[in-house]
């Protein structure tokens, strides 16, 4: 414990007491755990404000970005994979898989930079970055429009990179499913190719996509963090980054806790979805 020359022993003791540092370590640890679970995450070293307040003001921006992009990318990716599954071995299918591979190989932050270059700098359709304009409009409708204009580019970046991943994963699953006997049965019943794909194969090939998304949720979040930094999007990602630069450990701890929580929740949701989609799991 550091004490300056002007700090007397009782003052040091009082300070220690006020932080709970005079108690045994295990007790401190449980107090810490209790505080964490009740949302008392301490104050930021950098701004001095409660971390809970700082994060709750930003977390929604990240949740909107991640959930919207995952849903849209998953849906489009699934559709593309199904369509290319129908034309397996043809040029169109080969094109779909190569295009997804190429997009998948792009680092997501670079994709963001390129999109900024094209759509914000050259074409000027969207703002370069930020969550809102420096002086956001006060009326609700223009304010929402302002937010959406700022959301467009980061969202587009995450969707593009997400489509690449989900096409690759689902296509593999679709090929596995197409070899199954029930597909032959369905065809023998006289169902059209489209009906077989969308009624029977779709449901079964959803499962690996869901598992992949859940297991990969940490990676998706990592992508979101990078994209937020590229676009100065006011979410958890920029918060973590600034916390690292300012060595703001309590803020980092809280962000890390939230991210782990997010991954666990995503896996839990995936398990529930599994049970709903696949009756065999319910037993």
């Amino acid at each position, binding site marked *: 414990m550091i004490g300056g020359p002007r700090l007397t022993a009782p003052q040091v003791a009082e300070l220690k007491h006020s932080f709970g540092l005079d108690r045994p370590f295990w007790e401190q640890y449980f107090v810490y755990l209790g505080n964490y679970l009740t949302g008392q995450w301490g104050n930021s070293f950098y701004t001095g404000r409660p971390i809970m307040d700082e994060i709750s003001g930003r977390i929604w921006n990240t949740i909107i970005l991640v959930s919207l992009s995952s849903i849209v990318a998953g849906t489009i990716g699934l559709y593309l994979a199904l369509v290319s599954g129908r034309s397996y071995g043809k040029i169109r299918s080969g094109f779909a898989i190569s295009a997804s*591979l*190429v997009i998948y*190989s*792009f*680092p*997501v*932050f*670079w*994709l963001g*930079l*390129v999109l*900024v*270059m094209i759509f*914000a*700098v050259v074409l000027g359709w969207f703002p*370069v970055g930020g969550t809102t304009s420096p002086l956001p409009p006060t009326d609700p409708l223009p304010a929402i429009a302002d937010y959406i204009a700022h959301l467009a580019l980061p969202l587009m970046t995450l969707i593009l990179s997400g489509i690449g991943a989900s096409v690759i994963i689902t296509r593999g699953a679709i090929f596995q499913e197409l070899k199954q006997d029930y597909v032959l049965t369905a065809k023998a019943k006289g169902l059209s190719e489209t009906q077989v794909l969308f009624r029977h194969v779709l449901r079964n090939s959803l499962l690996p996509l869901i598992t992949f998304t859940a*297991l990969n*949720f*940490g*990676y998706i*979040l*990592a992508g979101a*963090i*990078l994209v937020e*930094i*590229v676009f100065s999007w006011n979410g958890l990602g920029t918060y*973590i*980054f600034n916390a*690292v*630069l300012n*060595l703001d450990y309590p803020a*980092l701890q809280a*962000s*890390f806790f939230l*991210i*782990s929580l997010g*991954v*666990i929740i995503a*896996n839990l949701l995936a398990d529930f979805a599994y049970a709903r989609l696949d009756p065999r799991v319910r037993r």
Partner: protein
Amino acid sequence: MLSLRFFVRRFSKQKGGLLGLTILLIFVAFAVYPPAFAKYDPADPKSYFVGQALAPPSWSSFFQGSSRTGFYGSLGTDQLGRDVFSQIVYGTQTPVLITFLSSAASILIGLLIGLLAGYFGGRSDELLMRTADIVLTIPLLPLLIILVSVNSNYLLDLTVLIVLAWWAWTARLVRSQVLSTKERAFVDAARVLGVRNFTIVRRHILPNVVSLVFATATIGVAYAVITQASLSFLGLENSARGSWGTMLFYALKFASFSTGAWWLVLPPGICLSLLVLSVFLVGNAIESVIDQIGT
């Protein structure tokens, strides 16, 4: 057992694999001895030329009359007057080194643990797989951001950390493959004949897992490349020369792209995805060669 010559002959028929291998070899050559390809070491301040900062790419003898020759300016220069082409060449070192070290190590460890857990089962399996589960739930990038920013030895730390996070993927996949292979009749037959466990794993189980290992290895290398690039993009790389990610970090920091300096943004990104793609192509080719041999 497959002979090397046979493997090479089969591999040379894979067009994608050959293309990938060529790109990969170029990058490796860059990484091994950059001065052979680029004249202007980005770590050497004497190679900066502020007067020619932010010059666009040009192939015609760009700086005729100045003392600079060679490829200087062929891909343009950055805000400090550094040659972008030289930066690309020198920037190959960190990604190539880290990704190959970390993926080789994590594949070896993952393979060993997967074989062990899958073949012997029981309590060690339980322990190893629960550990893998815990490792898999930890989001890698935020952890790396924090650890790399507080530690000093960037190269070593990053390699070790990627390995620590990545062995679990390989181990899980290998284990599931081992579990199904273990139940096949030829394994039982070998056991009845009194073949030792070690030999069964080496001769009968390992060959059935190799193709899967290559599949995960390609994804592992791709993730490692992108993870490394992400960290240096966040400005967390502390090597004198920087890498492709560092170039993008400066491009963002100095907002080069918004002034129209596209040559600072496109080349590093294209190189990154070329590296990833070439690994995909090579991995795919190896996988299909192994599958051909298997059937």
